[in-house]
């Protein structure tokens, strides 16, 4: 019986328990819910929870503990000959025994004692499963009887059911938080390993990036250089170009949408603009690489400029177009949140619409707009696909937007694509870059949200 079947059976049993509990509560209450403290359905849930929860908790505990117990039993029963083996060899054997027991492919020749050990391991597992099922059945039975006994007019079933639901919701949010914490910890841990190979200051302030490491000592290019400054500079350059495009266009379209457009135009134009945000970044990427970059190169050639076929300009422009909706949609929202009374006050003093926008609406909405722009910046810094395709891989330290540059995200992608060994400085560098990226975007987001929230409090 596998875990899924067990869960399915538990579900059916608890559903049955629900109806029994509900019926019984109605019977106790003399056919109506009037006298009961809680509604009959709560009594039903109460019974169902008593049936399912202990069994599920047992199942989880068992699945966590069982492998360890089974393995220690296996180790205790290993043939004498194995005691001379080193730890690594022993682990290899144990792995083989386990695979043999579960019917998987085994690399080694199957000797008699190996087969015997596998049989006894399989036996242990079977015994363990049967024991688990028996205990589970007992728990289900006890829970059911216990819950039925407790059902009475005064049972506060609702309060107890709600407490359990609260705990379940808490666990759900805990999972999300723990996952985030886990990711951060693994980033920190791997970054720590990286910095034992490459000095911290060399990474953060080095101006040469060439992440080659040798497989053999005699290889050419054995010494990698891990100075991340060119990557940071490239990221900043592309983000800057993107913001040059996105902020004016986004802001003006937001002003038009919230202040000038008629409701009908707005109802059509705003969703259309937000479609931009729904285009997959890959599509933007090949648009940048196949259409925009060659266009800029052709333009450059015609006026005698040397434009690289993968340029920061092309990537930045397309990225700017991609984040227009972020800027415009959020700015539009904050401008709409500026109370109508302020507009009225300004009009009543004889201000024109453009004076009102410039002198009242924009200053009032400014914190929110700054927040929107910061969110867009953090989005631009973290963007990967467009720059992979359109910005190139060469880690040039340059401020010239016509040359190709590379960004932090692009380098992470190239460091980790393909078959890689996971203990070389080359792959670990990706974690260090990831951590830098994470810290920067986190700070930007926190700051932006802080600004947006501070603004919201003012008018609500």
């Amino acid at each position, binding site marked *: 019986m596998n875990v899924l079947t067990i869960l399915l059976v538990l579900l059916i049993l608890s559903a049955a328990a629900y109806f029994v509990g509900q019926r019984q509560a109605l019977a106790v209450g003399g056919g109506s819910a009037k006298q009961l403290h809680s509604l009959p359905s709560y009594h039903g849930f109460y019974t169902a929870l008593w049936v399912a929860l202990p069994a599920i908790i047992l199942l989880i505990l068992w699945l966590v503990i069982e492998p360890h117990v089974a393995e220690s039993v296996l180790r205790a029963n290993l043939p004498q000959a194995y005691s001379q083996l080193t730890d690594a060899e022993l682990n290899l054997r144990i792995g083989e025994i386990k695979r043999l027991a579960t019917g998987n492919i085994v690399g080694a020749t199957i000797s008699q004692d190996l087969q015997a050990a596998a049989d006894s391991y399989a036996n242990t597992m079977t015994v363990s499963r049967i024991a688990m099922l028996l205990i589970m059945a007992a728990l289900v039975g006890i829970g059911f009887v216990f819950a039925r006994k407790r059902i009475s007019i005064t049972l506060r079933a609702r309060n107890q059911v709600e407490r359990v639901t609260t705990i379940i919701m808490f666990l759900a949010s805990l999972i999300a938080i723990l996952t985030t914490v886990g990711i951060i910890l693994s980033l920190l841990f791997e970054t720590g390993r990286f910095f034992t190979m490459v000095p911290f200051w060399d990474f953060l302030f080095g101006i040469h990036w060439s992440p080659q490491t040798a497989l053999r000592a005699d290889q050419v290019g054995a010494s990698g250089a891990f100075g991340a400054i060119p990557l940071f500079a490239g990221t900043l350059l592309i983000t800057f170009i993107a913001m040059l495009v996105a902020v004016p266009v986004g802001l003006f379209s937001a002003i038009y949408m919230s202040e000038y457009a008629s409701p009908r135009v707005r109802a059509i134009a705003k969703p259309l603009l937000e479609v931009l945000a729904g285009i997959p970044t890959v599509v933007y990427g090949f648009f940048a690489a196949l259409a925009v970059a060659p266009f800029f190169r052709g333009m450059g050639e015609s006026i005698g400029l040397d434009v690289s076929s993968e340029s920061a300009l092309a990537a930045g422009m397309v990225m700017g177009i991609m984040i227009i909706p972020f800027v415009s949609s959020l700015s539009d929202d904050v401008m709409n949140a500026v109370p109508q009374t302020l507009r009225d*006050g300004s009009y009543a003093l*004889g201000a024109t619409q453009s004076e009102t926008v410039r002198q009242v609406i924009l200053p009032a909405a400014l914190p929110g707009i700054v927040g929107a722009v910061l969110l867009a910046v953090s989005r631009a810094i973290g963007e990967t696909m467009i720059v992979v395709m359109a910005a190139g891989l060469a880690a040039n330290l340059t401020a010239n937007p016509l040359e190709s540059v590379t960004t932090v995200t692009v380098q992470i992608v190239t460091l980790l694509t393909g078959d890689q060994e996971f203990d070389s400085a080359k792959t670990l560098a990706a974690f260090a870059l990831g951590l830098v990226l994470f810290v920067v975007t986190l700070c930007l987001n926190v700051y932006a949200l802080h600004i947006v929230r501070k603004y919201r409090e003012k008018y609500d």
Partner: protein
Amino acid sequence: MSLAETEGTAPVQAGQAAQAAGEAKMTARDANVYYGDAQALKHVDLDIGTNEVTSLIGPSGCGKSTFLRCLNRMNDVIDGCRVKGDIRLDEEDIYHPSLDVVQLRARVGMVFQKPNPFPKSIYENIVYGPRIHGMVHNKGDMDEIVESSLRRAGLWEEAKDRLEQPGTGLSGGQQQRLCIARAIAVNPEVILMDEPCSALDPIATSRIEELIDELRQNFTIVIVTHSMQQAARVSQRTAFFHLGILVEVGPTEEIFTNPKDKRTQDYITGRFG
């Protein structure tokens, strides 16, 4: 957007409306307002006397605020709102196509129900209007206008040490007086007040009422109010609106002691409202 039908010469109906004690600052003849298909104001004839306080009373939705907003064309801002009829300021048709609404609103200021200072400093709130109308040219002009406006609004003593602080940091009553100061700063001829005290406590309300009485010397004031006591306290003339119709208008004392119309009597004695 609304463009009023502009008739060159509207027939001046000699009714109660023409009974303004002094000379009329603003006149409305056959004013009709529509929101989409619904008519909110029907054939209103009303005179606003110079240097008088005229109060507009009536139950909610009776059209008194709508009428008030016709006087400085604030209804233009509302989508689907149309104004028909003849409304004049100093004999000049304010809905005439050649009339600049910016100029009109400089002459007819407005104070709203809820205090709405701009999220700027007290100083900037006052100079906002004068600046957009090009009335101030240097710091000296601005300082002068800030002080005189705040003095006339009775806020100078409380605000003179905190002119650079945001206007939103003042109390509700102070904010409303700041809005009045802001309106006076452009030196209008008429001030419209749309329930200026409904968001204020009794003490702040009585300060505003005193202020209205002082301002009467220099300005023509029209006030919409839900409080009949307030109308009785501050106004010289009262107009009673009901269901979009101007039911009765006359000297305040007369309206409250000896109303001619049954509906007015029912309203001021609290039989409906």
